[in-house]
């Protein structure tokens, strides 16, 4: 039986109209008395890769964690402002953060697979959500590992421990684990910073493919990575009071070739940071 190959087209950014998936309005975030994020306003577009760049300590990771309410796990934090996911404010009283995190997944800087088998890692999310059917779980695991470009390397040894994989493989496993629960958005906090250049390259390739299905927001301190991989870039800075704010946001090409703001230009040309 001849198999038809459906080629997905990497449609260019200009051709497809943008639809907004996340709207951040007047977001202020404090750790206790310290204002860590000041008045952030931006839109994140569906199926695009948005990069957050800036010198270290300017709140990029904190901002990322605001988008899936992981900051709620830290005691003493306070959020003002709104984050609208598909029109609904995620900080509303009646929103369950647990449910939110099923829609907004996260990949961390250090790969953190569970000390279980590869299969158990990927099947973990769906299992916890109540999927009992073994066949369905296997399907989900296989699909997720394929999408994370890890399937060929682990097929046949799904029962071996996840910790036996290399760093780059572990990170791709974490990505597979995240996409197994079918989130709408994947947040990535410097996902390749702990990896060697070849593993980094594989992750960057992967991101492009993932963007066809998911929306990706990535924090990176590597400007070249941002310019290679992202469609939109936001540049963050920290002011005299150690509060982070957004300096400029726009299409990656615009930011890197014709930045509007002098600070952006200085950072990009390496004059500081």
């Amino acid at each position, binding site marked *: 039986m001849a*198999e*038809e*190959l*459906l*080629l*997905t087209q*990497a449609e260019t950014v200009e051709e497809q109209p943008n639809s907004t998936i996340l709207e951040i309005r007047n977001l202020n975030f404090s750790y206790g008395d310290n204002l860590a994020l000041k008045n952030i306003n931006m839109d994140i577009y569906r199926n695009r890769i948005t990069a957050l760049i800036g010198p270290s300590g300017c709140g990029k990771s904190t901002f990322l964690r605001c988008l899936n309410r992981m900051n709620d796990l830290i005691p003493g934090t306070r959020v003002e402002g709104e984050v609208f996911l598909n029109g609904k404010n995620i900080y509303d009283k009646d929103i*369950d953060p*647990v*449910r939110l995190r099923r829609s907004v997944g996260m990949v961390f800087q250090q790969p953190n697979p569970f000390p279980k088998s590869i299969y158990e890692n990927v099947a973990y999310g*769906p299992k*916890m*959500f*109540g*999927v*009992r*059917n073994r066949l*369905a779980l296997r*399907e*989900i695991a296989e*699909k997720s590992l*394929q*999408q994370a470009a890890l399937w060929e390397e682990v097929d046949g040894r799904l029962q071996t421990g996840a910790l036996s994989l290399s760093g780059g493989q572990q990170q791709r496993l974490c990505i597979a684990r995240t996409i197994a*629960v*079918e989130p709408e958005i994947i947040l990535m906090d410097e996902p390749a910073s702990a990896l060697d250049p070849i593993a980094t390259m594989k992750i960057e390739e992967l991101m492009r*493919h993932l963007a066809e299905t998911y929306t990706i927001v990535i924090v990176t301190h590597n400007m070249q990575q941002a310019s290679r991989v992202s469609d939109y870039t936001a540049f963050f800075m920290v002011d005299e009071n150690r509060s982070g704010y957004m300096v400029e946001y726009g299409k990656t090409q615009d930011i890197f070739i014709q930045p509007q703001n002098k600070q952006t230009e200085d950072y990009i040309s390496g004059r500081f940071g």
Partner: protein
Amino acid sequence: MIGYTRRQARTDITRKAVLEAAGDNILKETVKGHLFTGFCVVATLFGIVSLAALLVYVFWDAVGWLDWQFVTSTPSRFAEKAGVYPMIVGSIFVVALVAAFSLPLGVGAAVWLEEYSRDNWLKRGIEMNIANLAGVPSIVYGLLGLGFFVSTLGIPHGIVLVGAFTLTLRVLPIVIVSSQEAIRAVPTSHRHASLGLGTTRWQMIRTVVLPQSIPGIMTGTILALANAMGETAPLIMIGAATSIFTAPKGIFSSFSALPLQIYAWSDFPKQEFQHGVTPAAIIVLLIILLSMNGIAIYIRHRFRTKKTK
């Protein structure tokens, strides 16, 4: 670029459908979570609340029976006349001897382990051995006392000296381990400072390590002695009397101890004993233990805040 086959595209839809079909289990999981937390809290408080209740019971029963007469009389079949004086003396006497024996032996072993030994099989073997000794049931120490000190060495059974020897061996592992921790807590930089000035190892230990670790050693030892104060089975094995009318006069006197008397009296079914005399004896024992623990905690706090100044 990923190539999708038609078949793969179909299973793509299945994945989402499966996840949705699994239903929304967040509510169920949250309820489960709250129930579980409830169980955990109950479990945590179970022991504490139970013990508190038991202590209230025993204290309530002891009120009225615990008075100066009780503490200064000798045991008797008659509840009003019964007292625990010889037992108090016996307990304190034995534990004092245990302190005198176990401190030098225990601290000595700890010093060897921390300062003199190399990290080789001998050291690890000894440490594992000490860990095992800590887990040996205390009645077996009684058998050791009986079989070695009494039978082999010929020391008469049931006298203070044998009791002290036996209990020393029982608490030695605890003293060694807590002394080790106290010695380990002394910063290496202090050791190097001393050795760098040209002192010998023993001088360094004597003048730098030991003085700084004394509070920790004392705390650990006092807690070990409190343990010894409550020990019953080893003393039974070495022939200590469960009840005696005279307080021990010397290390070769027969003796009895508070826990032994409590054990003996637990057999007396008369109401005045079960809900009067024996609770009073228990309270006396608990007061002594409380004081010892209190001293240990005080030492720990006093010398901890002193260090941070």
